[in-house]
């Protein structure tokens, strides 16, 4: 290779070098390091690391009940988000997709909660759900439903649902925007042709809208699962996992293992397990998506 050609190639590599270096240092090395640390017992500070084979994984899988409680809690929130939040998002999407005035107004307003940070949302809602000065309790007392009042986020019976409500409030606007984009991509002529042929609204919805929207539905549900299972900011700014373990979620458990009990290896093992579970869930959903595509 001649010198000018080599120099030309080197300058080309300069274009990608910053990205590659950052990627290596802050993505690839940590990624590999997680697997390495997961087979050690290590407090994060001392130079001594004890190799413990797969003991961390065994503990996580079979002995750590708080971990599985946290998975179940996140699962409950995820199921609610998948059903209630996405249903609301779809209904709103279908309404706004029609020729109604103020389409843009609704789109802008519904997307305000997703723009806010989980911390801000949590802190504001914390107060709405508060036991002694909470807005919700105040409203209930005003309409003579005083017997229903409670410390919503401190009561073991309601805490997880309170979190779910906050999470769905923050999230439905996001689902709405994606679903609306999907709906608007459906050619209008299809609906109109069906209507001219005398099809009912329900027929149009179930035979045209739903089949065409299938890929979007699956996309939204995969992203909902991934996003909700990894919920953290809202938890930390409201209940911080309490009362007891009632609102613990996987990320708070990983952090508790790491920062709380200084078991870095164990925290990494939890992280890997969690990653595998998330990957498995999204793979199943993608399979389902491909499978359902054969019918439309």
């Amino acid at each position, binding site marked *: 290779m001649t010198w000018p050609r080599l120099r030309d190639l080197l*300058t*080309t590599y300069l*274009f*990608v070098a*910053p*990205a*590659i270096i*950052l*990627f290596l*240092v802050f993505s690839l*090395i*940590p*990624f590999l*390091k*997680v697997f390495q*640390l997961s087979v050690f017992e290590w407090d994060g500070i001392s130079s001594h690391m004890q190799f413990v084979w797969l003991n961390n994984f065994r503990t996580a899988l079979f002995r750590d009940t708080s971990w599985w409680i946290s998975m179940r809690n996140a699962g409950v929130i995820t199921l609610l988000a998948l059903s209630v939040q996405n249903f609301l998002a779809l209904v709103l999407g279908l*309404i706004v997709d*029609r*020729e109604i005035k103020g389409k843009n107004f609704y789109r*802008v*307003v*519904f*997307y*305000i909660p997703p*723009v*806010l*940070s*989980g911390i*801000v*949302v949590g*802190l*504001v*809602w914390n*107060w*709405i759900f508060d036991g002694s*000065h909470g807005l919700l309790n105040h409203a209930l007392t005003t309409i003579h439903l005083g017997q229903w009042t409670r410390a919503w986020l401190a009561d073991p019976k309601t805490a997880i649902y309170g979190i779910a409500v906050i999470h769905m*409030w923050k999230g439905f*606007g*996001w689902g709405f*925007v994606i679903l609306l984009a999907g709906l608007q991509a459906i050619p*209008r002529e299809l609906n*109109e042709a069906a209507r001219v042929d005398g099809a009912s609204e329900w027929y149009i919805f179930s035979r045209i809208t739903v089949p065409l929207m299938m890929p979007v539905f699956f*996309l939204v549900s*995969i*992203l909902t699962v991934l996003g909700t299972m990894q919920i*953290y*900011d809202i938890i*930390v700014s409201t209940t911080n996992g309490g009362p007891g373990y009632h609102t613990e979620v*996987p*990320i708070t458990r*990983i952090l508790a293992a790491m*920062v709380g009990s200084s078991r870095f290896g164990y925290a*990494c093992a*939890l*992280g*890997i397990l*969690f*990653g595998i579970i*998330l*990957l498995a869930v999204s793979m199943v959903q993608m399979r389902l998506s491909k499978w359902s595509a054969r019918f439309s």
Partner: protein
Amino acid sequence: MDSSTPKTVSSASANPSPSRPVSGFQFQILMYRVQRYTTLVFAHLFCLMVAAACLFPLIWMVSSSLKTQSTIFSDMSIWVKHPHWENYYWAWTRGNFSRYFFNSLFYTAVVVVGVIVISSLAAYAFSRLKFPGRNVLFILLISTMMIPIPGSFIALYVLLVKLSLIDTRLGYVLPQINGGLALGIFLLKTFFDKLPQDLEDAARIDGCNKFQVYLHVAMPLAKPAVAVLAVFNALAVWNEYLLANLVLSNRTLMPLQRGLMVFQGSHITQYPLLMAGIAISIVPILTLYFLMQRYIVAGITAGALKM
């Protein structure tokens, strides 16, 4: 409710014939219109209720930030008669929110610029320049978007300690720049791929080198994609909490989200100041959102398409 029917309805009602009894056809049109308007009213009512539910907590937060510690739990009015604007002053000064605010501004600006510069350079190379290993490197960089690695922040923390980047601005900024690269490279590469090659060829013939073509031809054309990237990264950095919690323990370095938690922890009872702090923290992000909202919609759709 579709756009084609109203025309026939209005032309039919343009010639009303009050003397004759309502024929069956006209009755049908009447019923159709009644049905149409009731659905429309219900649709709007429903949407307005949801919109109110979106806005109410925010309005409540602002009105609470104007009350005093003694009235905040008794005065449930939305419209505050004697607003205490000084709460904002106290939050800004004594609550340290000025410091957090400028830190957030700094981190957001640095990460956004970093992501745009680094990912556009890489995306341009992946789209236009030929070099060995191009596809492998591209897939490697993009793969970080696909694989959820919830535990990687532990190793990242260990790494930052080793590089003595813990509790430094650099240690907070670099991982976030890296975090924005995958989407940035992906978005910009697809954008560059669609640009016509002719302009760049002309620039090359006129004697521009690769870098000049990138800077003076490709980048100016990529403005829409760059705007999407800027908004998305700005939102992500401004709202980031987990990394700030792990990396930064020095109060003078903390961004707003971290500052809010610290303030809540140490002044648990000062609700009006906390609410003022929250209001301060969302003003810039809401402004950005209102100004750039069409880019956000474009970005969500593009971001969703990456899957």
